[in-house]
Each structure stands twice: as C-alpha cells, then as structure tokens.
C-alpha cells in the first residue's frame, strides 16, 4: 500500500477540519449565551467533525 502518498493527500482536509473545530471552540468560548449547555457543544464540535462545527455555527449561536 502506498500509505505515504495517501497521507499527503488527506492532510489538507484534516488541517481544514482542525481549523474549523478550533474556530468553533474559540467562538463558543467567546459567546455569552448559546442554545443549550456549552459542554454539549464542546463535545459536538470535537467529536462531530465538520458537521458538528456547522451545527454549532448554524443552530448553536444565538446571534447568528
């Protein structure tokens, strides 16, 4: 298997997902009020991949 080539292709996606999750967490930390408990959103953003962060930005933010 050519796993080395594989990684270099997938790495940008992983980096983008990481950036997305970090932005989501920063935004969550700064927000004074969100829908539902904050710890729930932390779990959703960390374990929900791309969809978790999207859900937070679209549903979780109150002023969005």
């Amino acid at each position, binding site marked *: 298997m050519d796993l080395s080539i*594989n990684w270099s*292709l*997938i790495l*940008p*996606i992983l980096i*983008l*997902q990481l*950036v*997305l999750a970090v*932005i*989501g967490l*920063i*935004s969550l930390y700064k927000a004074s009020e969100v829908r539902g408990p904050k710890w729930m959103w932390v779990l959703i953003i960390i374990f929900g991949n*791309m969809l978790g*962060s*999207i859900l937070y*930005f*679209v549903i979780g*933010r109150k*002023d*969005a």
Partner: protein
Amino acid sequence: MRSTWIFYRKEMLDMSRSFKLIWIPIVFAILGITQPIISVFMPEILEMSGGVPPEMLSLYETPSSAMVMVQVLSQYSTMGVLILVLAGMNSVSGERHGGTAELIMVRPISSFSIMIAKWFAQCTQLLIAFGFGYIASFYYTYQMIGSLSWTSGLASFGLYGLWLILAMTITLLFSTILRGAGAAFVTLAILALLSLLNSLLPTWFTWSPARLSSLAAEVLIGNTLSVSSVIICCLITVGIIVVCLLSAARLLQKRVLPN
C-alpha cells in the same frame, strides 16, 4: 452612496466577528477537496468496507476530471446551498427582531441603500467561499486526475456563481418578511422546486434560472452551448435578482416603519 459604503463595512465587520468569513470558505473547501479524493480512492474504500467482489472492483473506472468537477458542483447544489441559506437566513430578520432595524431606519437613510449594502456584503462572502472551494477542488482534480480547461472552468464558475447569488438574494428577500427558520425553509422550497422543474421538463424551462447549474456542468464537460440560451438565462436571473432586491427594500421600509 456614502451610507451604503458604511453599511457595507458594518456588514463585513459583523461577518468577520461571527466567523462567517472563515468557516463557510473552509466548509466549501472541504466539500470540494473530498470529492476528487473519494473518486480516486473508490476501489480502496470499497475493498476496505468489504463484501464487494473483486471483479466488480476491477470494473471501476476513475471518472474524468471534468466529471469530478461536475460532481463537486452537485455537492455544492445540496450542501453548499443549504449552508449559504442557513447562514444568511437571519441577516435581516435578526436585526428586525433584535430592534437594530428600527434604530437605523428612523434616521434619514433609504431602506434601499441598506439592502444593497447587505446584498454586496453577502455577495462578497459568497464569492470568497465559493471561489476558495472551487479553486481548491480544481487544483486537487487537476493534480490527481488530469488536466482541465481553464476557460471552461472559469465559465462554469461564473454561471454557477450567478445561481448561488440568486439563492442568496431569495434568502435575503424572505428574511425581511419571515423569521429566520421560515425564511430558510421557503427559500429552500423555491430552489428545490426550480431545480425539479428544470430536470423534469428541460425543454419547457430553457429560460429557468435553475438552468444555470446544468449549463455550468455542460460547460465543464465541454459541450458547446448556444450563446442565446446562456444570455437569456443570465438576463432572466439578473432580472429576478433586481426585482427581489427592490421588493426587499420596499418590504423592509413597510415592516419596520408601518407609517
């Protein structure tokens, strides 16, 4: 003119504070990059998931680079449009219910300059997101699968961008009348209806704005398009956008200041 510029800057500031200028382009890029990777590694993915006979695997052919870009566009038609509509649904209704709109509208500022500023800001955000995602997926497809024509890529970017701008304008229009979720629902229903009619009765709706997305796909594949049909489609779409903006400005005036 000056107030429009000030409102535009205010909208852009709002978008960067709510991280919309970052997260929407990232999501578009992830959607765009994933498609070519999945297309290339389809046999490996099927093999790992198991239960697929090897003869089937050997039949799999990597789609051409143009076909992969068409798949990326269809990915944007579902997930991309959904995200744009959901992100834009509160742009006017949020201010209306939050009371910001009244504060602004009691001043001698035309509602038209507010709407046009919002529209330009949303356009900027949309083009950044779509452009970033499109360039990323174009680059990946180019590197992994094979060469693509730059000119047809650019043409399809323009056609598809116009369709996305239409989706955003309809969201803005309904955001002035309805609450956020209602606006998103109505917009998505209208867009789905347009696409459905376009795919069911293609000969009847050659002028439909939903045609733009199929035209963008055809340009990528390399079919020659009749110039007149492209021009008619674009003109009708631009007309609808202008009508939507004018009526949104009118509705905003009426909703916020009833007298």
